């Protein structure tokens, strides 16, 4: 290379703009393997000062090369519309409601009656009063029925809001409960035989091939760096993937303008697997959460998050 020239990967316009003031020249040098529109330009600059200025001018370009998408995501997360659901959920938790005009403040989410802080990070878990493993959503329904007197069938019939409709009470409550575990370590317990069984069933379900497409969860979530169309898929069989998924649901789903819960996420996957409908609050739906939660151990809760 001639002394005083630098070989850089620039578009022609970048090169022209940068060196115009320095009286250099741009001559195209196609590099093998470069895509269209990006060519190496031999930038001839007259002197060292020109070269130094060129280097300085290039610095901001390379600094911003890191991911405008994550900048955008951070902007969204700072003012997450889910906060509105969280605020509404807090009202629903504290106000006396239902046929019994009672507040949910007596509800036991696993840390004792009324303890919400940190509870979401340790669900699903075994509850002696129902002799079963329950997740946050089934436990909230249980409390709304037993403490407030709401009708179980009615709650289970329409747990998720329709497009364009306001959040359901359940979605708002899940958002509130999850928000009180933000920053907490994920620690889904495996201390009872029921919890072990729940994990085992969840694992078997995760790998179960069924339906006309032969789809299991593992088909899409069992390897690294897979995506469906442009939607990246976490590898849920690895701790990083499991933590990323478990920590971020419930989530404000931008494409739907609503908070969506883990039960919703699971049932929508099952629909796309071409299976029949996963019943809301069913043991299978809870077991899948147990399996994911145990794999996610040690992660940090950060829900409600912002998702596509």
């Amino acid at each position, binding site marked *: 290379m001639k002394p005083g020239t630098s070989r850089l990967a620039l578009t022609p316009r970048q090169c022209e703009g940068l060196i115009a003031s320095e009286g250099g020249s741009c001559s195209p040098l196609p590099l093998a393997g470069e895509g269209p529109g990006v060519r190496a330009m031999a930038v001839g600059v007259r002197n060292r000062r020109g070269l130094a200025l060129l280097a300085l001018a290039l610095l901001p370009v390379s600094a911003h090369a890191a991911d405008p998408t994550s900048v955008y995501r951070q902007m969204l997360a700072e003012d997450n519309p889910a906060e509105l659901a969280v605020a509404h959920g807090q009202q629903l938790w504290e106000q006396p409601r239902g046929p019994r005009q009672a507040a949910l403040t007596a509800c036991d989410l696993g840390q004792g009656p009324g303890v919400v802080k940190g509870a979401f990070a340790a669900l699903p878990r075994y509850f002696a009063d129902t002799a079963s493993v329950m997740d946050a959503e089934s436990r909230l329904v249980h409390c709304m029925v037993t403490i407030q007197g709401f009708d179980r069938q009615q709650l289970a019939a329409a747990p998720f809001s329709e497009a364009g409709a306001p959040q359901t009470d359940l979605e708002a409550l899940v958002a509130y409960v999850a928000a009180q575990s933000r920053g907490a370590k994920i620690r889904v317990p495996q201390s009872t035989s029921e919890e072990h069984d729940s994990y085992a069933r969840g694992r078997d*379900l995760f*790998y179960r091939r069924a339906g*006309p497409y032969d789809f299991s969860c593992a088909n899409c979530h069992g390897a690294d760096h897979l995506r469906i169309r442009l939607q990246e898929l976490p590898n849920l069989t690895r701790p990083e993937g499991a933590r990323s998924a478990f920590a971020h649901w419930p989530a404000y789903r931008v494409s739907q303008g609503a908070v969506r819960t883990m039960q919703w996420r699971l049932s929508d996957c099952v629909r796309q697997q071409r299976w029949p409908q996963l019943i809301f609050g*069913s043991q299978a739906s809870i077991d899948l959460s147990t399996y994911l939660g145990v794999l996610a151990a040690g992660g940090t809760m950060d829900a409600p998050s912002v998702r596509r």
Partner: protein
Amino acid sequence: MRAFQTLVLTVLTVAGGTAAQAQEVPRWGLEQVIASSFRASGQAGLDRLQQTPMQVACSVAHPDRLPTEAQQRIEREALQGVQFPQDGRWLGNWQAGEKIAQSGTGLQYSDPPDAPRGGNCYGCHRLSGTEIAFGTIGPSLVRYRQRYASDSDAMRRTWIRLWNVHAFNACSVMPRFGDAGILPAAQIRDVMALLFDPASPVNR
């Protein structure tokens, strides 16, 4: 004699083991939980949860580690079931094939049962060189004709893959488009044309 009997019994148990395991009394109540956790909806009946022998065998964390004999049996049975086009015509219309590849609906309980089904090929594969919204679960199929040849043997092998990929790759994650009745033969021909027609965007 006793040792031989034990050996035969062991071999039979191992061979039939993968099929029998799911029907054994589960220690954690999986089948009961499944029975009470799903409901029929739209065109998706509960019968969809009944597993075929291939599905049972492949419902493991590492299907690539299945015994060779088990994998070969899956492949053999899959190949035996392939139905080839009656008139020997492999290719249909690539434009129709592109539509099938782009469409992701069909067979969900939210889909009308009589609506045309897509293959959702772009969900997992890259096909046309200019379509950027492609998945990466399956390999890229760009320039399929150039990369995989276009003689009748290549066409036959591709047909088999589309009909029942397990004939070549036991426990593959790709759906059995012909064998499971997802796409009729006429539409599989269109997908074949998308892959093999020189005018197709896949090959331009």
